[in-house]
């Protein structure tokens, strides 16, 4: 491959010398972020800091009860406070249209569709928005606003044996089953029957949700921080019964999303206030408010039953997962779905169940389903390996499915074995003594563990416009979102290769719903979906330009829409795969678990930008450390609200918790796929917590089936060495 990095540090806006040589091969070469300089110098503006003339500030007031009805909202004293412009609540807010199914196949979450009635379905539910001239005035008035409630008893108790659990489809069928589970389990030489739990987890991205709404010449203009501008614009237009063309949503830079940055209370309340006041209104959420307003990962209780022959070949696999949802919106954490891809067995049953509690609505978060599901399933596989006396990697290789265990469809590629082989070689797995509790350094017990990872390689319909400018540069317009992933840079490289020019000649414009419909940055589908649309448009543009003598002043633009191409894609099981390895040290005196090193080797299609790809995969693995050892949203039984709902109380891994973490990949070609790119945003977390938990067992001889593996749990679990 030809290598070029010319101009990528400064980006096209600053490029003063055109690259004249024909250059290809940008994809696959490490490039720093095209907007990196803007970000590190502060030139990049985020949604909450973009100035607007005549800006007013809204502050949300959240319920202090977990269930009941709003009695009174005593607006009078607050309206008399300095700078206060209005107080919106269920008694005066405009009625929204909520009878629709959004772009991602779900109805609107009532937590986002604020102030529509007097019911309070969970603690931290939005009950009012105070708008004032300054943010400080709005906050002070919001804190002074007296809201009375008719409180009702609440039920927030999540546990595995809830009798009111029900199967729930979500984005996949709730239940799949084949074969006779009881018969195969009875005929098995080894049976593992265990329950795993994971706690409530929160996205905790760095940048809080923030939006400014204003009316601009008859159009609603929203400057926001989100994972998909056309997604948010579409939902706002439906909620407010506006023509789709009358809504524009922009989201230039986004400080993390992880699944929570869709339509939320901040945008909806800002639009209401901007409409009522006829001036720009900004609503920014606080960290504490985010804990109840922006979704989270439900806790899970997962029951796994595995039956295997003496050599470890599975005869039976059952994976049941229970998660919670709110009483106003159905969402299921589909943890049992991972078993539908990873392992086959003559008897195979998976089920996703939910229970409705007086809690906020959960949502997609960092590999929804796969992350908690792979923790349970891959830890159970490790337990089976122990029972069978088979090496954990060998056990997985013996149980590699030839086709989708549930779908029966062929895999587009299945390079899991290659990941394990390469990972085992680099990690030094060979010769590992499988017996637990043997490696001691003073008070520390040392262990290693492994687990498999997978994540679907999906795509969503997208449109793109590519313009050849008269000055020899190219402008790409696509409503993509760079939520910190490096998507803007990756798409620049994709466009450069498709146009056969240097990346410095590409001007990549994203994050604007006016660019037309596009997939969101979610489900690890963004880069695959957007690259597809850009490639189609760029290919056609290049062909069209081939016959042209010159480019007119207005440029030459080609538009693409991948809807039809996506529909024509052969039906296959398309996934990224990976092998996770971890080494841990467990202090038997204090119960502290520290990860010493991690390695992840992935098969994730064509890697566009190795620099940011590594960041994505390592970042996912760090999520996994955090999930295994730290993260836990604690709910207070009495109030029904959060305990310690801030970043001091909700622990995510710090730098000191993250040791040497290496991520790499094996070739994963798919000649039948028109883009060859798979998602890498989420597969890094899948299996990471299981690898760590398995390593803790290898260190101590104790199975920790409840996350996070806190010091107190290690201390009270006992075991031979504690």
């Amino acid at each position, binding site marked *: 491959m030809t290598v070029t990095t010319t101009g990528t540090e400064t980006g096209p806006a600053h490029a003063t010398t055109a690259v004249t040589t024909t250059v290809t091969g940008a994809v696959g070469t490490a490039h720093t972020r095209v907007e990196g300089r803007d970000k590190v110098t502060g030139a990049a503006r985020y949604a909450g800091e973009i100035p607007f003339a005549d800006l007013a500030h809204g502050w949300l007031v959240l319920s202090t009860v977990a269930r009941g009805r709003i009695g009174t909202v005593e607006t009078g004293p607050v309206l008399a406070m300095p700078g206060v412009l209005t107080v919106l609540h269920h008694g005066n807010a405009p009625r929204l249209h909520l009878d629709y199914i959004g772009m991602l196949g779900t109805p609107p979450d009532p937590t986002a569709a604020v102030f529509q009635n007097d019911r309070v379905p969970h603690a931290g539910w939005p009950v009012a928005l105070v708008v004032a001239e300054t943010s400080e005035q709005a906050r002070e008035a919001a804190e002074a606003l007296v809201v009375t409630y008719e409180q009702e008893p609440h039920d927030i108790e999540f546990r595995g044996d809830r009798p009111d659990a029900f199967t729930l489809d979500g984005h996949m069928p709730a239940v799949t089953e084949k074969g006779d589970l009881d018969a195969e389990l009875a005929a098995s030489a080894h049976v593992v029957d265990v329950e795993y739990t994971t706690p409530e987890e929160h996205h905790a991205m760095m940048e809080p949700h923030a939006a400014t709404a204003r009316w601009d010449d008859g159009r609603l203009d929203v400057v926001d921080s989100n994972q998909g501008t056309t997604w948010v614009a579409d939902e706002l237009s439906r909620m407010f019964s506006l023509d789709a063309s009358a809504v524009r949503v922009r989201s230039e830079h986004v400080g993390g999303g992880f699944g929570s940055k869709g339509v939320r209370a901040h945008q909806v309340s800002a639009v209401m206030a901007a409409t009522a006041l006829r001036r720009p209104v900004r609503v920014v959420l606080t960290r504490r408010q985010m804990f109840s307003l922006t979704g989270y990962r439900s806790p899970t209780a997962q029951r796994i039953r595995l039956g295997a022959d003496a050599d470890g070949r599975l005869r039976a696999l059952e994976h049941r997962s229970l998660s919670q949802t709110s009483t106003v919106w159905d969402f299921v954490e589909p943890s049992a779905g991972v078993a539908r891809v990873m392992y086959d067995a003559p008897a195979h049953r998976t089920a996703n169940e939910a229970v409705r509690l007086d809690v906020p609505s959960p949502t997609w978060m960092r590999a929804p389903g796969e992350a908690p599901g792979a923790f349970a399933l891959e830890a159970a596989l490790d337990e089976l390996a122990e029972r069978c006396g088979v090496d954990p990697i060998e056990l997985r290789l013996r149980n590699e499915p030839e086709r989708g265990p549930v779908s029966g469809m062929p895999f587009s590629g299945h390079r899991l074995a290659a990941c394990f082989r390469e990972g085992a070689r680099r990690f030094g797995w060979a010769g590992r003594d499988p017996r637990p509790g043997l490696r001691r350094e003073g008070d520390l017990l040392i262990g290693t563990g492994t687990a498999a990872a997978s994540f679907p390689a999906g795509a969503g319909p997208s449109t793109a416009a590519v313009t050849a400018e008269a000055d020899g540069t190219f402008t790409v317009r696509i409503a993509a979102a760079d939520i910190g992933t490096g998507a803007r840079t990756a798409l620049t490289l994709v466009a450069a290769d498709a146009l056969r020019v240097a990346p410095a000649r590409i001007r990549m414009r994203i994050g604007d719903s006016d660019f037309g419909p596009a997939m969101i940055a979610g489900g690890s589908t963004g880069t695959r979906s957007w690259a597809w649309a850009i490639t189609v448009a760029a290919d056609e543009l290049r062909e069209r330009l081939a016959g042209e003598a010159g480019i007119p002043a207005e440029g030459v633009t080609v538009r693409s829409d991948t809807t039809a191409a996506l529909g024509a894609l052969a039906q296959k099981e398309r996934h990224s795969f990976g092998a996770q390895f971890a080494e841990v040290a467990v202090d038997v005196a204090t119960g502290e678990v520290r990860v010493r090193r991690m390695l992840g080797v992935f098969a994730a299609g064509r890697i566009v930008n190795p620099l940011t790809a590594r960041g994505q995969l390592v970042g996912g693995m760090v999520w996994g450390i955090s999930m295994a050892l*730290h993260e836990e949203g604690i709910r*207070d039984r009495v109030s029904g609200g959060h305990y310690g709902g801030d970043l001091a109380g909700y622990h995510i891994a*710090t730098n000191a918790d993250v040791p040497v973490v290496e991520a790499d990949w094996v070739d994963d070609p798919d000649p039948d796929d028109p883009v060859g790119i798979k998602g890498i945003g989420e597969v890094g977390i899948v299996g990471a917590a299981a690898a760590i938990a398995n390593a803790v067992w290898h260190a101590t001889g104790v199975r920790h089936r409840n996350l996070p593996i806190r010091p107190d749990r290690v201390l009270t679990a006992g075991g031979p060495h504690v």
Partner: protein
Amino acid sequence: MREFDYRRADDVPGAVALLDADPDARYLGGGTNLVDLMRTGVERPARLVDVRRLPLDRIEPTDDGGLRIGATVTNSDLAAHPEVRRRYPALTEAVLAGASGQLRNMATVGGNLLQRTRCGYFADVTKPCNKRLPGSGCPAVEGEHHNHAVLGATEHCVAVHPSDMGVALAAFDAVVSYRTADGPGESAFADFYLPVGDTPHRETALPQGALVTGITLPPVPSAARSRYRKVRERASYAFAIGSVAAALDVSNGVVREARLALGAVASRPWRAHAAERVLNGAPASADYFAAAADAELAAARPLPGNAYKVTLMRNLMVAVLSELAEEAAR
């Protein structure tokens, strides 16, 4: 955020006078705790008296061979001071185990002593808390308490003091100096924090309006071999779930002097007198270290969710004492 009056004091009597003039005023040190509490509405002072520029930023030897540490010395400067590192290494270790580099650069010694508990009920104005709102109840007893007190708590409050630094100061018999409108005063560290009783909102023996001016460390020869060990739920930037400051003077295998204080187990840094009584004069061996720990923890009254702390503190005391004894034997 409520508006408040901000004054910067130029000298100690001036600071005390500025505070006295407004019953709803607070001294502002580094602001690393108070400002957070103002943001969350736990503290709503009408006036802040900024004392950070007072001439209390020195660390000086005392005539008897101790150290006097000014109240506005930052955590970073305290930890880095050569005499602190040489003569009271556990104090340096304790300070460095807390917070982050940025916070330690701002936080002051006086503020560290007076920081408030990080109990999640205390920090959340929508929930009851006897410390924040006397008489409203303590939800932690029935609710979340896995990092709450096992020693010295009552049904009125089970919160723990969050300081790392204070644990070392407790072990070394520090004395707190303060100033009121009536003049200077002193409080031994053992008396500085009040028992919880049924008044958890009364935290220290400081008179109304008093400004902490400094801390005096007496000469403690055994402190030259001292250690601070902190256990937390992540490797950095978390409050302790248990900590130990210990100094051990061993001669011919016998403990001549042991000093032991515990963190994250009580409403104050907890001096382990019962353990020390077992240790002093006893053989420096693991059996006696365990017996000493058991003697201290005999008074522990854990809740269902924090019984692990008894195991943790026992293990931790034994581990730290064993480590110090091994060093002494080298």
